[in-house]
């Protein structure tokens, strides 16, 4: 009898899961937020009762769920929880993955807040109606070119792009250190440059778009054709160019640059180059998803984040101070490079031109990356 019971238990354990899933859903389909997070709810309500003056959102909303680009932001989220009592759960993901996933989820997004990632994805998301409008007082202080006119997305800083160069290989091949974008098309660098596929790397998409804007359509495409002659293949991961340059797999990588990268110069025999003929950049977005279970918490976060003291928190986490560009009146922060060295970009074109540019790009590079469209 005992054995029968044990067997039944194990069977029901197997099917109980499926069954519970079924009932759980029915509950949550009726009332958008209650059931699934119930286990987390007590902890979050306990947290909110501790919080003093802040308006704590209803505990039934559960924790604030965030998709972000790096686990480093945990420090920031912890501070948010400390200040407001709202628990934060986060996950890091590339912006392309986020966009696809949220699109597929059809109005029931996995998260409430989207923190970081190339702005083109945010623009696309706004177009697809995935983002929620957030109006708050601090929005007026932000530089208008780095936020959405309708307050669907904001920026938390800029990703700036340059080169990382492996000195050993350069010496081995008797090559000069490239100083400008134009240097890169020198045939001497053939097969020694790595760039990510702009379709998956917001950073490298910024390079393409910015150079096209700076040089003009015709000269711009001519430039990329010449560059293409020097590049063997376009990597499928955004991190590849810098990683493979450090590892000595390639001499020059086109990559984002920040203080953490600069630190590499101490540990590895590499040099960072901020191109003298202009630094392409792309803003990093912040936005609230439409239809999330805790949109109130997400809005609360945005309000909180754009307070000066909290904005300053992100500088060590991001290893850069470009947040000063986003909020010019941010006190006690000085930009470590002159704003003038950035390329002149019309960000409004980033989203709208994306598919046309990538299409043309793919035709140009041929079989070096068969990702087309």
């Amino acid at each position, binding site marked *: 009898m005992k054995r029968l019971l044990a067997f039944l238990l194990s069977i029901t354990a197997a099917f109980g*899961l499926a069954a519970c*899933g079924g009932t759980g859903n029915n509950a949550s389909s009726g009332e958008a937020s209650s059931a*699934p997070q119930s286990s987390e709810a007590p902890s979050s309500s306990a947290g909110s009762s501790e919080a003093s003056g802040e308006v704590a959102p209803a505990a039934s909303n559960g924790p604030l769920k965030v998709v972000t680009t790096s686990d480093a932001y945990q420090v920031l989220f912890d501070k948010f929880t400390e200040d407001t009592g709202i628990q934060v759960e986060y996950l890091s993901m590339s912006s392309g993955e986020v966009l696809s996933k949220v699109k597929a989820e059809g109005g029931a997004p996995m998260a409430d807040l989207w923190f970081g990632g190339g702005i083109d994805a945010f623009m696309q998301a706004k177009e697809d109606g995935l983002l929620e409008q957030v109006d708050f007082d601090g929005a007026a202080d932000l530089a208008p070119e780095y936020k959405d006119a309708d307050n669907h997305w904001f920026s938390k800083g800029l990703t700036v792009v340059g080169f990382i160069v492996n000195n050993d290989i350069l010496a081995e091949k008797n090559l000069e250190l490239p100083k400008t974008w134009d240097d890169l098309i020198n045939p001497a660098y053939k097969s020694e440059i790595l760039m990510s596929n702009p379709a*998956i790397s917001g950073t490298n998409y910024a390079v393409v778009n910015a150079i096209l804007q700076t040089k003009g359509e015709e000269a711009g495409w001519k430039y990329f054709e010449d560059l293409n002659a020097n590049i063997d293949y376009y990597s499928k*991961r955004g991190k590849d160019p810098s990683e493979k340059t450090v590892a000595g797999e390639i001499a020059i990588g086109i990559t984002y640059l920040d203080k953490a990268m600069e630190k590499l110069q101490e540990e590895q025999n590499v040099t960072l180059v901020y191109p003298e003929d202009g630094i392409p950049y792309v803003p990093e977005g912040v936005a609230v998803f439409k239809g999330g279970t805790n949109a109130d918490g997400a809005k609360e976060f945005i309000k909180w984040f754009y307070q000066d003291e909290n904005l300053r928190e992100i500088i060590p986490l991001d290893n850069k101070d470009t947040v000063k560009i986003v909020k010019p009146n941010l006190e006690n922060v000085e930009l470590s490079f002159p704003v003038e060295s950035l390329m002149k970009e019309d960000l409004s074109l980033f989203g709208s031109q994306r598919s046309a540019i990538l299409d043309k790009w793919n035709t140009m590079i041929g079989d070096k990356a068969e990702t087309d469209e």
Partner: protein
Amino acid sequence: MNKRNKKWVSVVGTHFYNLLDFGILAVLLSAVAVFILYPLLCIVKNSLWIDGAFSLQEYSRLFLKNGRLLSNSLFVACLSAAGSMVLAAAVALKVHFAPKKVKGLLMGLLMMTMVSPPFVSALAYIQLFGRRGIITYRLLGLSINPYGWGGIVAMQSLSFVPLNALLLMGVLSKVDQSLIHASRDLGASPSHTLWDVILPLIRPAMLVCFLLSFIRSLSDFGTPMIIGGRFNVLAPEIYLQIIGYSNLPRASAMNMIILVPALIIFVFYRLLMRNSLFSASDGKTGEFQSVFHLKGIANLLLTILSALFYGMMLLQYGSIFVGAFTKSIRGKLHFSLEHFEQLRMYNSSTLVRSIVYALIVAMAGTIFGMLLSYYIERRRIPLRNFTDFVATLPYMLPGTCFGIGYILAFNHPPLKLTGTALIVILNMIFKQLPTTTKTTSAALSQISVTMEQAAQDLGAQKFHVIKDIVFPNLKNAFLVGFINNFTSAMTTVGAVIFLIHPGKKIAVFALFDAVNSGEYGLASLIAAFIIIITLLVNLGLSRIIMRGRR
């Protein structure tokens, strides 16, 4: 009086157990329909309904413009499958005929290589054989370009070996010993015996290895993504379509394209299996009491091949463990605990959650798969062949595809599962279902039908036949299923990327994340943790089950 009472008990019991039996069957069939067929149909629909209208544009475009991708995929799949088949045969033969002590060691190593976290082996390959690779550059002074189809084929061949070798060893252990004795008796040398008797006997099983590896290669996206260079194949391209363009229709269509060769291969596989490949032979089988030493050129060849495999594996795992404790500064390795500091940032709950999920997946998935296999093999159930076919489909689909299918299928009521832990667990269970059912089928073919009839004859209801007779004799299959389910739940990343949600991170996702943000050391450390935990759980369970058998 007593007699009447007895009868009453048995009548009630009969109804109860018949109902239970029917209930189990209903749950099995509907689960297969809901959690495999339905998501797949969602993918199909997604590839055909573009902006609300029926269209074949994605397919025609794929054939017109991306034929190269498909041919590249097939090319790599052929080579990887062949390579892995040959290597696996060499490894399996060497282990099978090895002296007892060596055998244990080789088996242990093989078990370890079963646990292979994604990406890190490809990264290790670059560390070892890249332009600045430890072996190619530092040891041999070469600077070769490791990116391209060669690298993919090499890595895939190696990584498919463990499973293939285990399968072949299973078949080898069933080869009738007297055939080998007869061959020797008739004057054949060990080499000739190997070539003329043993290899022909395991040839069908080798072909099965080939087919299974072929399908695995088609759906592998991690390896080509990291070391493919400019050589493109379909599976990573699907991933790029999703993350680069969020073009779900095209990604779905590409998945369907991958499915075609996989299906053709599968039909071959079924035909092979039907020829009772794995049925028991009547002769004396099992451990070789008599001594049979491999000798001669054949042995030399086998030794070289399996040494190649073990050597590569040791290097690979060595570099993972070394990577976990070192930091490369100016091209030199330094001992460092820095990655442990980094790891501290991750919630320890991530690791615990992974283990809990994996245990649930292993337990529930194995029991589910075994039950399903039993009903398919031994009962006349409705739509038997169709069910079997559907239950095998997840094996052929790239993980990312199965993940997207789940999102599409379960993002709305009545079955809204997105954002729950359940969707991750269910996805893992059903992705591995084919392996569990196939293992169980093989084991079931060893249990004679008369044994079940005997139990029924003694008064056992269908339910009791399963509980008392079939399951106790499937311990081995359970063990294999459990280990496979647990291991893949701990190490497979494909579908999880799209199903995991904030607050429910698992270790393999953290690994994926670390790989993507270029933290190779951290990735190595997480991988090392995953390997150790998985090995411990697998070994522990093996111990428990083996002891039970005494």
